[in-house]
């Protein structure tokens, strides 16, 4: 009797460990995107504009959507923070921001692409496997504007990104930001 109770306790303890691991992994999904947005805000002293409505546009309404929005729908769930008319030139992010961003996201996220250009700004693409979906986090900062975008890609879209990291990063960012600028009405 005493043994079976101890076994039960051990089993419960094991389940707790598993549950807490899974919970921390799930919580991390949100935390990393938010942490990146906060890192940009604190590093460059800028403020973002969230687009919380966007994720719900196609999911919960049956409106006729424009081609841009429909194109974005292929991403599934996504989060977008836009930095408009902010000054990203005040601090050089070439080395220090690069290091801080990597420290924030790695090893949970794998760096796929990093383009740092002094005249055009910074573009980063990080990826993470999440079951059958592939999470992609894109950070694009120009002189006056910036975006942080997290999207879920299906396998086919993700493979396209792997084959042409630079071109597809641009396509995904363009699609998401153009949809964000559209009036859903």
């Amino acid at each position, binding site marked *: 009797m005493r043994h079976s109770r101890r076994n039960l306790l051990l089993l419960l303890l094991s389940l707790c460990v598993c549950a807490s*691991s899974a919970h921390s992994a799930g919580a991390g999904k949100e935390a990393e995107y938010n942490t990146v947005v906060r890192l940009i805000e604190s590093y460059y002293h800028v403020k973002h504009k969230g687009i919380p409505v966007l994720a719900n546009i196609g999911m919960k309404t049956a409106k006729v959507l424009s081609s841009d929005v429909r194109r974005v729908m292929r991403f599934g769930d996504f989060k977008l923070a836009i930095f408009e008319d902010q000054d990203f030139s005040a601090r050089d992010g070439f*080395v220090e921001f690069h290091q801080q961003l990597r420290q924030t996201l790695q*090893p949970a996220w794998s760096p796929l692409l990093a*383009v*740092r250009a002094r005249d055009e700004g910074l573009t980063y693409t990080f990826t993470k496997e999440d079951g059958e979906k592939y999470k992609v986090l894109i950070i694009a900062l120009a002189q006056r504007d910036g975006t942080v975008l997290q999207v879920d890609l299906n396998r086919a879209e993700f493979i396209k990104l792997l084959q042409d990291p630079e071109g597809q990063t641009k396509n995904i960012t363009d699609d998401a930001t153009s949809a964000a600028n559209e009036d859903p009405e």
Partner: protein
Amino acid sequence: MKNYTLLKLLTLIICAAGAMTTHAQVRYPAQLQIDTLEPLAAKANQVVDVNLPESLLRLIPIDAIKINNDTDAKDTNTKELKQIIAGLKGVYVKNFEFINEGEYTDADIAPIRAQLKAPGWARFVNVINKREGRKIEVYLMTAPQGARVEGLAILAAEPKALTVVNIVGIIDIEKLSKLEGQFGIPELDIEADKPAEKKPAKSSPAVAPAALTKKP
């Protein structure tokens, strides 16, 4: 005894839970620590990094690969590219562009050269174009038996640019040029010579040497 078994079981469960949240990355001998060049970023006008580890390359179905300008999927180029990709375990690219000439020196590349002195690595091709100030070196990592190439590194140094490409995996370097423009690998003007034109190097593996030529 029973307690010991339970303890083992518990340890296994905890390990399994840990493994679910940890991303283990295998590091192959041919994989260079390309980030040792990072200090050079402070001097550069543009830096591009592309990282495709094995975990990502494995996701690419070989049948989905097609060279952009190929109209026929059975085209030789696409076939060869598929063969190359099947053996890859990682593709890593780091490219620096500078505004002025002479903004980097040999000392800046020293951390990479030091890694290429490790056992298994040998310089296979060294092309210097003095007129254009261009120098391209190709290093191969061969298996201990020397029978096959397990990785390669390309150092392309130009007056205003520096590119390091590290390809990990089994590669037929005759077909190396097929990878240009794929997976972020820049166009390095790598062209394989016809086997009849050059004799294979004595210490090199059983593949024809590649020549690096400037395309018109």
